[in-house]
């Protein structure tokens, strides 16, 4: 008998049997000729979509096609921060839906994703910023999301080692979302992959989609490096490759691809117990359970598919870190990498059907799509199954740009590298 349900009991039993009974987390499936739904892209969003399609919408003939390996895209490259501290009406209910799904995720998919609600603290450094954060906090609370404004003493109590008296950017307080935190990113990919696999979803790795077959304006299948596959519906969840895959169906998207870098230091004893962000530059930091400091900042700012960035941003991120917490200057950096972001024109995502029949789009996640993974999967599954938007994603329409109904959290306009 195999130990397929993860529990203390199965762990004990396997310990006694030399751990010989564990099954692979997902089968190495080969493509069949046809599916009801094909999801292109086996990142967090594609896998979550497949899981909810099978689990909540009863569609089982589903394949996820991944050109590389599960966890190799942004789902395994991000800085793992989850939060629902959004201001605009189109965003707040969606990200709060995601936060609630994170809260029940591990039981739902029977996988330890190390969901850690350690809090997310956004610091402010001047009066205008304080006002903006008060407004954001109020918007959150009106939507039933937790938010607390901390004064400088409360921030000092929580993270005493910050540079409070920075001559240019003294810390005046912060907005805290206690329910925010971090989630182990690759466990999210593996956990959704395993749970979807157990419901019969085929997860097909090393299978790159190279073309989309369109007949009379309707997408009927895909061409891949492992042959042609037909499908009733096709959902694109290709993150940083969205523009390229959409172009296979003749679509141009309101998206530019940009590179974002992340950094991890050597392991240290626990000292930062909440996610902390600098408000005077772009810098965010948390400490992983292994002890490494995980941090990042701005995107590099020019179109890129290279999955690696340049030194000016490395310098900028580290200057931000040094301004906020000078003690990290003594720590050695171990690893640094880049991932390609699908930066949308208003900084918000798209979950919608396209002008091609049977072809659906999930894209535009910018550098904040990890926190969205569960809700994105749920809403995309809802759209694919019911052909209508999920109520928390009803503003994420592709035609919103033409209608002037953009959702621009940062208020910088149609310049993707500034979102």
């Amino acid at each position, binding site marked *: 008998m195999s130990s397929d349900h993860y529990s203390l009991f199965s762990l004990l039993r396997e310990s006694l049997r030399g751990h010989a009974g564990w099954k692979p987390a997902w089968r190495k499936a080969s493509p069949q000729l046809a599916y009801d739904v094909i999801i292109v892209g086996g990142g967090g969003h594609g896998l979550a979509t497949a899981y909810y399609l099978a689990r909540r919408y009863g569609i089982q003939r589903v394949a996820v096609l991944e050109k590389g390996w599960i966890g190799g895209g942004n789902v395994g490259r991000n800085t793992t921060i989850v939060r629902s501290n959004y201001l605009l009406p189109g965003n707040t209910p969606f990200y709060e839906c995601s936060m609630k799904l994170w809260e029940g995720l591990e039981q739902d998919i029977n996988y330890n994703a190390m969901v850690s609600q350690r809090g997310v603290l956004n610091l402010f450094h001047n009066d205008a910023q304080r006002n903006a954060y008060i407004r954001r906090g109020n918007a959150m609370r009106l939507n039933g999301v937790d938010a607390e404004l901390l004064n400088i003493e409360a921030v000092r109590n929580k993270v005493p080692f910050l540079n409070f008296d920075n001559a240019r950017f003294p810390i005046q307080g912060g907005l805290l979302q206690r329910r925010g935190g971090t989630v182990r990113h690759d466990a999210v990919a593996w956990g959704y992959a395993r749970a979807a696999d157990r419901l019969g979803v085929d997860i097909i790795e090393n299978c790159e989609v190279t073309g989309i077959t369109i007949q009379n304006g309707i997408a009927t299948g895909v061409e891949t490096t492992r042959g042609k596959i037909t499908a009733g519906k096709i959902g694109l969840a290709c993150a940083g490759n969205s523009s390229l895959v959409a172009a296979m169906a003749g679509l141009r998207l309101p*998206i530019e691809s940009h590179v974002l870098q992340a950094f991890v230091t050597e392991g240290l004893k626990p000292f930062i117990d909440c996610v902390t962000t600098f408000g005077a530059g772009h810098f965010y930091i948390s400490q992983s359970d292994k002890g490494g400091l995980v941090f990042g900042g701005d995107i590099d700012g020019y179109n890129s598919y290279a999955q690696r960035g340049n030194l000016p941003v490395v310098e900028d991120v580290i200057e931000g870190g040094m301004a906020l917490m000078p003690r990290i200057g003594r720590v050695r950096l171990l690893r640094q990498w880049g991932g390609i972001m699908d930066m949308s024109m208003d900084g918000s995502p798209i979950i919608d059907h396209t002008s091609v029949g049977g072809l659906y789009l999930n894209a535009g996640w910018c550098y904040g799509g990890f926190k969205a993974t569960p809700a994105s999967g749920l809403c995309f599954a809802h759209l694919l199954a019911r052909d209508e938007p999920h109520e928390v994603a009803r503003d994420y329409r592709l035609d919103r740009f033409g209608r002037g109904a953009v959702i621009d959290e940062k208020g910088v306009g149609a310049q993707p590298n500034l979102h």
Partner: protein
Amino acid sequence: MRLTCPHCGARALEEFTYRGDATLRRPAEDAPHQAWVDYVYLRDDPAGYHSELWYHGVGCRAWLVVIRNTLTHQIKSVSSAVASPAPNKSDS
């Protein structure tokens, strides 16, 4: 990545500001709505060579057209946006 400005020579990236696709052309005032939506919001976003605008704000303050490979960051050419604007894909 460094850019070799035709006026100032090889300079660090921090001296420049990026302004995206250089092949876009502003539609006529009375062009149809969709032409404006395309211009403001839709992009080709190619993997490979990309003609793009960079502004040399900390140098000569010229607008430049850079042809750069988005897969490798290799720079093929840098020229003045005034003297040699990037061709629009629709004029040929």
